[in-house]
């Protein structure tokens, strides 16, 4: 690795950006398709560390290359966590890569996704300027909300250096209930009903391949037990305990064959059936966020079929790994996007999306 492109400080990061005419930042490359471009990579993994954490503020600040697992461990010591359940933490994903990819895990169901917890960002724009937007307190309405804009921006508008996030106290305990559902339509029905019930679920996922919906409760154990009993009175099913290993296998994508193409598809609960029923037989799919996201895994040979299905359904997909183009289905494009890109990156230092 060229040392120039593996900065260890923010100053080195600025210097690396300024001295490289074309580049794309990457983290631990746990979502390798996002940085699989014919352009020099600026690796941010050495730019790491939690720079501020005061648990009484419910906030922390960390450099972009900090492994999410390190952050989760530091938060856990104080009984706190990142409620959006970052994915691929065990595989070493960085905070910066998680922001740039715009991916959140099942826990986003209760309190919101990554975008709902990011408060501030420091970044290097295409001109090589180090800039800060947003703030370091949990409530702030000053200036344009670039921290949220960068969520999902794939590193194409600036190199992300440091973030401030809001965190929450971890629920006292978790309890998972598994409800069998014979087809995609019945999965959708259970998800829609459960998502507006009084239980205030912590997570609501479904696996069409396993024909089941998974409802996770978070809170005092005695409350979880009582709510689980009520859920089982509504639908027959079983209590799985905290099912931590199962949820981890979901967020680590252990269920998706490594040779497959893995993608994220934004969805709504009422479109679950139309999507799942259109998928090729070899596809594996996991529905998360109460039916608002589908994670789909297909063999590379099936990608073009999937692409046209998504286009037909006016859905879009972001490929995280595997042999495929990055964008599948219908991605909206506007002249505005080009103008904003020109503001943040006037010299086209970063590739366009």
């Amino acid at each position, binding site marked *: 690795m060229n040392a120039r492109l593996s900065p260890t400080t923010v100053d080195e990061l600025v210097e690396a950006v300024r001295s490289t005419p074309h580049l794309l930042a990457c983290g631990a490359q746990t979502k390798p398709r996002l940085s699989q471009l014919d352009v020099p990579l600026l690796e941010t993994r050495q730019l790491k560390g939690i720079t501020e954490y005061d*648990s009484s503020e419910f906030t922390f600040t960390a450099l972009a290359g900090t492994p999410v697992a390190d952050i989760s461990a530091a938060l856990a010591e104080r009984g706190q966590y990142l409620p959006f359940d970052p994915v691929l933490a065990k595989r070493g994903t960085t905070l910066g890569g998680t922001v740039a990819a715009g991916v959140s895990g099942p826990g986003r169901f209760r309190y919101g996704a990554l975008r709902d917890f990011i408060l501030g960002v420091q970044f290097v724009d295409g001109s090589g300027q180090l800039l800060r937007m947003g703030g370091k307190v*949990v409530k702030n309405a000053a200036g344009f909300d670039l921290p949220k804009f960068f969520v999902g921006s794939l590193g194409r508008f600036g190199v992300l250096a440091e973030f401030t996030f809001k965190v929450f106290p971890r629920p006292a305990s978790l309890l998972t209930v598994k409800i069998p559902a014979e087809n995609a339509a019945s999965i959708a029905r259970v998800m829609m009903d459960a998502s507006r019930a009084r239980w205030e679920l912590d997570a609501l996922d479904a696996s069409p391949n396993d024909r089941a919906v998974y409802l996770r409760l978070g809170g005092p154990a005695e409350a979880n037990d009582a709510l689980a009993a009520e859920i089982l009175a509504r639908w027959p099913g079983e209590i799985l305990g905290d099912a931590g290993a199962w949820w981890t296998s979901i967020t680590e994508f252990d269920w998706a064959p490594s040779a497959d193409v893995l993608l994220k598809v934004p969805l709504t609960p009422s479109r679950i059936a139309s999507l799942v029923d259109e998928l090729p037989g070899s596809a594996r799919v996991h529905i998360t966020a109460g039916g608002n996201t589908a994670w789909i895994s297909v063999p590379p040979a099936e990608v073009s079929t999937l692409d046209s299905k998504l286009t037909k359904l006016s859905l879009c997909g972001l490929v995280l790994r595997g042999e495929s183009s990055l964008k599948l289905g219908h991605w909206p494009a506007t002249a505005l996007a080009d103008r904003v890109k020109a503001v943040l990156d006037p010299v086209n230092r970063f590739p366009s999306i």
Partner: protein
Amino acid sequence: MSGDPLHRLTAILPPSRLLREPAQLAAYESDGLTCFRATPRAVVVPETAQEVIDVVRICHEERIPFVARGSGTSLSGGSLPVSEGIVITLNRLNRVLRVDPDERIAVVEPGVINLQVTAAAQPHGLHFAPDPSSQMICTIGGNVAFNSGGAHCLKYGMTSNHVLGLKAVLATGEVVEFGGPSRDQVGPDWTALFVGSEGLFGIALEITLQLLPRAECFHTVLAGFRTMEQAGDAVAAVVASGLLPGAIEIMDALAIKAAEAAVAAHYPPGCEAVLIVELEGPREKVAAEKLQLDALLVQSQPVDVRVALDAAARMAIWKGRKSAFSAVGRLSPDFIVQDGVVPRRRLGEALRRIGEMAREAGIRCANVFHAGDGNLHPLILYDGREDGALERAEQLAGRILRMCVEMGGSITGEHGIGVEKRDFLPDMFSPAEIDLMKRLRAAFDPLEIANPGKMFPGGNAPALVQHGLHPLEKAGVISRE
């Protein structure tokens, strides 16, 4: 009329919806920040999204500045007109276009009133979380433009956290759509960039909002303390306990006095601070957590702890809190309110310094604040009939804002920069950062015709003029927080 660029508006709007008489314009001269005032050249009253688009396109072609306005409750002067431009009032775009309980979303026009979203969601057991205290009158369009907050932001976030998508007409006349009905999306978050842009990018025409299940059960506790420090310690203990209350609010002695005078809230007598903490959720969860909360509060040496045993008692506790702002009007002919934020651990220090600065200035200052998220609301009392009193009050407000920034906080937690705080933007952002924001604005509005004079320092602003309380405020309909 030929040669007057406004003439083109007569071709698309009937005279009854193109207001140009001084008496008609007077109602739009000011918003919730009444010390600024400007008379627009005209007020247009569109009834459809297409009419808004047509008006904006004419404004773009003729370079006519425009200010979009909902109910005019902005506390930062966000909907202050510009004298060389027009006001586009959006109150007639007030349709709830769709409520989908399965998707848990509502699609609304910008003139829909905040509380009407929850009213439309309620039959499905859902609600819209952002609750600015003007929620019975403020519009979603204004909430979106200024990323409005409320009393529940620590747990639920601000308006931005509840907007999934929107259709908007940019200042260029382009119509764009960002996001959509899904809570997930791909690519950068355009919706989030638009929310809180203070009307500088364009006008939202259709807004997709996420709805959440209505909390089944509440546990509301009011605790009175001898000192503000004790109240602050109680908040620290609650925060450290692992509980996540829906709201944590504190009022100081002067605010308590005002609330008592206004609504006879029957708060515990002799207290320097009153703390309100509210848990919410499924009844089993609240039942378990309330034991923990009540024990914590008892340990924090309160004068008195009162638990709301029913909905009426809960409403009584909140009535005192929510009336505090308009109640302060009884203590003083005039007041201004700020909404700076400090890190929560520095709340006690911030209040002490506000007290010192107020004493130095010889000005009374009441404090009501969202203790859970460090969002201060100092109410600076003054008498506008006194020579220079408004200016002295503004100077104190400015010192408080600078203190918030020095402490690592923000100059605005929920009201936005608007006209009021634009000169303080450089206290928070570097010249390069402000330049970036200006260039971003130019990507949406190269002619700078959309809500000019807001957010960025400089430019022409009407001078401060003493005008007293907002008419709605006098009537007790709105309050300043």
